[in-house]
């Protein structure tokens, strides 16, 4: 760019900053360069010529060409984009030397919205470009316009409101008057002019008060108005005023001063309502009332008036006089009346008022009492009627009269009282009063019969007058005769008793009794009397006679021995039964003393044992040993009573029973019972002893078997050892069954209460049966229908015992098919729901006859079953007892040949603890623990040996003591970490030794942990060990697991190495060589030929590695059939190589993949197998000096 002499160079950056909307064109009008902002809003500007993108609006150019534009260098250019959406303003610079045109443009914006439409910001404009500022100005103007519009709207709205209010003021039918702050009238509306006749002109400059000066205008009201106005207070009043023409009218004025913000008076404002008509109507009403009142007063009645709305009342002078008052001492308050009403009658007033208010009545008529000034009550007749109502129809005013009706009321009351008395009398006599007349002309009949007749006899009066119709025929004759005699012989008394046959009542006995009352002027004789109902009396008499006969019969024919005797014991009467029992005739007994019949021994005690008791206490019971006439000794059970009746001497009545035979039988029974109890106790003692005696040698057998199994045995020896172990376990099982039953029967059974996971428990229990099931070709599965990680509280061992028993049975009685265990929560009780466990098999089933008895002791499904399948027959009985003791039930469903399902339901508490103490170790695995120094106190050599071997096998050091005494000595001399203390030892038993140890002075020795070892399994005994200071106990024969667990628990042992935690692949058997494999079987098979072994091991490693690789792939692609096939192959080689730690896992993997169950856990199982086998490979390669193959040794990737 040239600027005079100086040259300025604009590079693109500077050009973009100064003119971000510039365009550079060459001579062909092609756009060579475009500014950054024009580029932003027209992105395609790089391609094409100027005319492809733009048109020039101004200046006018005839032909749009380079030279034409170049010629217009000083013009203002207005350029539009082709689509006319964008406009630019600027100028053009012509570069003659370069033959180029430079458009220096700026975007022209009409509104701020265009900024957003083009997505432009402040930075897109040159600093010197005022476009944005112009938009601000534009926007500010817009805002100002909006403000003004809004202001205008407000103004218009207010104007309209004002006009509306003005219209109301001027057009309302009430007069409106406005005065200035000095009280001079400045405005009145049309209505005011109409009402008053004055125009605004008449009033201008005058105060509104100047109008209130008519001849009857109340001056007091005018004064009130003046005062309120001068005090700047609102005002309201009614006043008589006069129109301009002098016509009076009533007006209601209400108004107030209008104050400004500073509480200064601006105006006065008043509304005037013409109320002339209303006032005149009220005056007319008042006059009418007065006239009416005057008329009533003249009649001697008191007049009153009451206003329901205002509660105001009016009482006339005559009204007050009735009550003993005058105008001075009786005001016009409604309370004057209501307070004098008798309290018992107030409710009448209230009820009437309610009815008035509800609009149910328009007048009333009531009688009540009011208190006279002198204190007594007078009766008032109160009448009233509505005289005015409110606009909405409610009662406003009632008016009425009071009359004194005391005398009339008193008369009425006296009459009512005498009637009541008479009614009460005739209703309450227990008979029918009547008058009967014997007329001179011979006729006769009832003159009067009281109304109680129907109640007493059951016949209405009209029927009774015709009484002979109902008379019993036998009695009718008697009655006729009695009446005839009374009439003929002029008797003064009449008496008759007879039966009426009354419908609905049957026979009614009645007695009529009357006497002569008077003779009438005509000579008729009138009898007055009473008829009573004697039916009940007659019935009692008959009953009495019947009872007497019954008692007589009872006495004579009873098998009971009945007698009476006097207070000395002398017999007064005896019944035939006594005579028969004793072998005497009655005359041989009566008159003699009871004593004479007693045995000699009883005779001595007779007085204090019997006679004194019955005389003093009124009754006695017991047994008399008596002698019959044939001198046979009899036992008589007696119960005798003293009878005291007025008018006769007291005597004794006795009832006895011959119990000679019963006494004899009871004695025999008691002897038998004592014998039985003795035998039962002996049995329990025997069982306890047997338990101990059998369990002690069993510990030897099983313990030694365990130790033996870890030594090198050939196949036959191993087989024999298995048989020994199995038989030992069976025997132990039988002993345990018998002990369980004994404990259950003697009520000694107690249950643990610990948290456990039901599903886990069942899983681990079923593991024990997996081998057996598989050996028998039976599919054993667990159908877990429990939800989530359910932790319950209860006795897991007993649940395990029950399920193990049922599963063991199921496996025993199922030859093919499956055994399924299921678990499910069946009630939704949130605290202690029921759980249902089912053990289903497809076995031989149970016959209908046997199914009811299978839960009994020593029963099985028939005796042939026992022979064929073995067992004590106690299992199910124990199960049933164990379940029922926990509040559960057990049932069986079965069909012979169609399988059996046992259904167990037990309630368990839902445990609060979500976490379980994982103390359930897997069998056969003992983590390495700190080494301890342990004293074994045990007298039986074989048991010493077992304990020693096990403990040393775990790395502990052991010292032996053969009895308690030696144990104490050892502890005094040496320091031990733990004592295994047998209970039954010679010289000093374990309990005594423990007591001595616990009292040692050295606190370390006194607190040494002691585990009791006992063959007794009775809990109350085991409790005694703990009470004696022992820390724990184990029962012989014990398993290694039990011993380990007890030691761990007692010493709170920590595992020595965390990494040795059980994970299924690092299982190590302490006491062995730390190898994960065991080639005993292989070596035996190959006669210990080393070359053979080398080949076998090599082949094992190679084949197994291949299998693992294949299995990994199969699992990855979820080919379960293939996985199962490989697992099957792997199983046999793993077993042959004695890799015991994973045989179960391989077996499970095979079962799960075969049955396509628990598929989620397959990768984890494989993971364990793979890890263990990798370690086995390494050990084998080292032991057999193979160089590991680097490629093959690589671990198979673990499937996640």
């Amino acid at each position, binding site marked *: 760019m040239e600027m005079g002499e100086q040259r300025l160079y604009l590079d693109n950056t500077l050009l973009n900053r100064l003119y971000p909307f510039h365009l550079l064109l060459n001579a062909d009008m092609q756009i060579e360069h475009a500014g950054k902002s024009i580029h932003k809003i027209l992105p395609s500007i790089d391609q094409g010529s100027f005319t492809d993108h733009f048109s020039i609006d101004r200046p006018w150019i005839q032909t749009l060409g380079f030279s034409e534009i170049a010629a217009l260098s000083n013009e203002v250019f207005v350029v539009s984009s082709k689509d006319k959406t964008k406009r630019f303003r600027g100028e053009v610079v012509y570069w003659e030397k370069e033959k180029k045109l430079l458009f220096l443009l700026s975007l022209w914006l009409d509104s*701020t919205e265009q*900024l*957003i439409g083009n997505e432009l*910001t402040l*930075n897109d404009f040159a600093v010197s470009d005022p476009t944005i*500022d112009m938009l*601000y100005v534009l*926007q*500010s103007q817009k805002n100002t316009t909006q403000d003004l519009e809004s*202001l205008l709207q407000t103004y218009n709205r207010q104007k309209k409101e004002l006009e509306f209010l003005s219209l109301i003021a001027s057009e309302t039918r009430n007069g409106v008057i406005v005065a200035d702050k000095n009280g001079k009238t400045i405005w009145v509306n049309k209505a005011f002019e109409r009402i008053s006749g004055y125009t605004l002109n008449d009033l201008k400059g005058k105060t509104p008060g100047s109008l209130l000066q008519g001849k009857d205008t109340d001056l007091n009201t005018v004064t009130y108005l003046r005062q309120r106005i001068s005090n700047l207070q609102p005002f309201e009043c009614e006043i008589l005023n006069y129109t301009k023409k002098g016509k009076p009218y009533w007006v209601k004025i209400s108004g107030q001063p209008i104050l400004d913000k500073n509480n200064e008076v601006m105006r006065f404002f008043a509304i005037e309502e013409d109320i002339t008509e209303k006032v005149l109507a009220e005056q007319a009403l008042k006059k009418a009332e007065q006239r009416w009142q005057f008329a009533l007063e003249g009649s001697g009645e008191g007049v009153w008036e009451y206003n329901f709305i205002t509660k105001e009342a009016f009482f006339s002078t005559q009204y007050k006089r009735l009550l003993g008052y005058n105008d001075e001492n009786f005001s016009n308050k409604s309370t004057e009346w209501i307070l004098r009403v008798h309290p018992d009658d107030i409710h009448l007033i209230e009820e009437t008022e309610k009815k008035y208010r509800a609009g149910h009545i328009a007048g009333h008529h009531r009688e009540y009492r009011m208190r006279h000034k002198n204190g007594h009550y007078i009766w008032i007749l109160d009448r009233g009627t509505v005289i005015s109502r409110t606009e909405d129809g409610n009662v406003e005013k009632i008016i009425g009269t009071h009359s004194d009706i005391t005398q009339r009321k008193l008369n009425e009351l006296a009459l009512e009282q005498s009637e009541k008395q008479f009614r009460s009398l005739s209703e309450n006599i227990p008979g029918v009063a009547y008058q009967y007349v014997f007329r001179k002309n011979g006729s006769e009949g009832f003159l009067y019969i009281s109304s109680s007749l129907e109640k007493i006899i059951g016949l209405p009066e009209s029927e009774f007058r015709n009484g002979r119709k109902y008379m019993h025929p036998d009695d009718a004759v008697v009655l006729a005769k009695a009446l005839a005699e009374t009439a003929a012989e002029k008797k003064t008394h009449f008496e008759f008793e007879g039966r009426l046959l009354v419908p609905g009542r049957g026979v009614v006995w009645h007695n009529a009794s009357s006497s002569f009352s008077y003779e009438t002027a005509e000579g008729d004789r009138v009898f007055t009397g009473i008829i009573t109902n004697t039916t009940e009396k007659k019935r009692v008499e008959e009953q009495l006679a019947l009872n007497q006969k019954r008692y007589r019969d009872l006495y004579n024919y009873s098998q009971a021995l009945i007698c009476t005797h006097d207070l000395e014991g002398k017999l007064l009467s005896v019944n035939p039964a006594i005579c028969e029992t004793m072998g005497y005739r009655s005359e041989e007994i009566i008159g003699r003393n009871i004593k004479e019949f007693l045995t000699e021994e009883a005779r001595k005690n007779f007085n204090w044992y019997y006679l004194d008791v019955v005389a003093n206490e009124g009754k006695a019971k017991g047994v008399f040993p008596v002698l019959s006439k044939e001198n046979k000794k009899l036992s008589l059970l007696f119960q005798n009573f003293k009878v005291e009746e007025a008018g006769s001497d007291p005597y004794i009545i006795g009832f006895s029973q011959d119990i000679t035979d019963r006494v004899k039988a009871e004695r025999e029974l008691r002897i038998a019972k004592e014998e039985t109890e003795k035998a039962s106790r002996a049995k329990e003692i025997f069982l306890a002893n047997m338990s101990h005696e059998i369990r002690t040698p069993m510990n030897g057998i099983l313990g030694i078997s365990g130790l033996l199994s870890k030594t090198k045995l050939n196949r036959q020896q191993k087989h024999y050892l298995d048989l020994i172990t199995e038989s030992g376990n069976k025997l132990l099982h039988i002993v345990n069954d018998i002990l369980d039953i004994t404990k259950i029967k003697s009520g000694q059974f107690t249950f643990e209460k610990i948290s456990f996971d039901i599903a886990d428990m069942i899983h681990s229990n079923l593991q024990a049966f997996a081998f057996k099931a598989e050996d028998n070709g039976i599919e054993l599965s667990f159908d877990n229908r429990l939800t989530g990680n359910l932790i319950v509280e209860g006795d897991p061992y007993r649940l395990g015992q029950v399920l193990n028993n049922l599963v063991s049975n199921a496996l025993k009685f199922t030859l093919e098919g499956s055994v399924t265990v299921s678990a499910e929560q069946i009630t939704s009780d949130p605290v202690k729901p029921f759980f249902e466990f089912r053990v289903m098999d497809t076995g031989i089933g149970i016959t209908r006859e046997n199914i009811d008895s299978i839960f009994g002791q020593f029963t099985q499904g028939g005796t042939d079953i026992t022979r064929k399948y073995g067992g004590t027959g106690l299992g199910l009985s124990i199960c049933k007892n164990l379940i029922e003791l926990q509040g559960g039930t057990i049932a069986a469903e079965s069909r012979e040949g169609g399988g059996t399902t046992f259904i167990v339901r037990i309630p368990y508490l839902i445990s609060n603890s979500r976490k379980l103490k994982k103390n359930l170790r897997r069998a056969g695995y003992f983590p390495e623990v700190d080494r301890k120094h342990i004293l074994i106190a045990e007298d039986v050599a074989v048991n010493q040996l077992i304990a020693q071997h096990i403990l040393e096998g775990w790395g502990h050091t052991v010292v032996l003591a053969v009895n308690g005494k030696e144990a104490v000595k050892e502890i005094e001399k040496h320091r031990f970490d733990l004592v295994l203390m047998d209970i039954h030892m010679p010289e000093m038993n374990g309990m005594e030794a423990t007591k001595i140890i616990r009292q040692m002075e050295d606190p370390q020795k006194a607190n040494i942990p002691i585990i009791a070892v006992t063959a007794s399994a009775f809990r109350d005994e085991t409790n005694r060990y703990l009470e004696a200071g022992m820390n724990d106990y184990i029962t012989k024969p014990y398993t290694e697991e039990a011993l380990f667990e007890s030691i761990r628990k007692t010493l709170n042992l920590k595992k020595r190495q965390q990494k040795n935690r059980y994970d299924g692949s690092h299982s190590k058997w302490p006491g062995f060589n730390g190898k994960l494999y065991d080639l005993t079987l292989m070596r035996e098979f190959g006669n210990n030929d080393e070359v053979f072994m080398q080949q076998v091991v090599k082949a094992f490693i190679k084949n197994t590695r291949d299998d693992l690789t294949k299995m990994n792939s199969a699992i990855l692609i979820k080919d379960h059939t293939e996985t199962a096939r490989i697992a099957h192959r792997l199983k046999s080689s793993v077993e042959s190589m004695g890799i015991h730690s994973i045989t179960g896992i391989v077996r499970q993997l095979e079962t799960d993949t075969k049955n396509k169950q628990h598929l989620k856990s397959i990768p984890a199982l494989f993971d364990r197998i793979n890890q263990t086998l990798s370690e086995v490979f390494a050990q084998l390669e080292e032991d057999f000096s193979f160089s590991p193959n680097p490629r093959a040794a690589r671990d198979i990737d673990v499937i996640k």
Partner: protein
Amino acid sequence: MYGIVNKAIEQLVTEQFGSEKWQAVKEKSGVDIDFFLSNEPYDDAITYQLAGAASEVLDIPLNNILEAFGEYWVLKTGKEKYGALMQAGGSSLKEFLINLPAFHNRIMLIFPKLTPPEFHVSNIEERSLCLHYFSKREGLQGFVRGLLQGLSKLFDTPAEILLLQSRADGKDHEIYQINW
């Protein structure tokens, strides 16, 4: 101050607390102006009186009132009255803040009776910068903080605002550090 500021205070109080409260604020302040015209200058004292009265009537500390007002100014008044121009100020919080000085320098000329504050930007980092605030007016720091909070919300960019120095400490201007 221009009427638009007072008008915004009125709108804020009316919207949040009702027109009765606004009447009470106005009464308390002693300001007897029924209608503020957006583009008319009013005495600064009026604005201070209104803010002070709002604090007393609504029982909210003055600084909180000013903060709320600052936010309102950006999110409501700015958007309503100068929506597009606000957007043109920048497409992000950072860009807007960087443009803030130029923005105020332009404003000064457009509204000649305005005494706008002066801003200066320094220490521009990827996620923070320092904003220097020079003003002849006292006691509007809360308002500035509110404005910055409002901008943070407007651009949906949560930011931390630190007052590094202040006239209250004897310095001649305030420095805010904005971290986002």
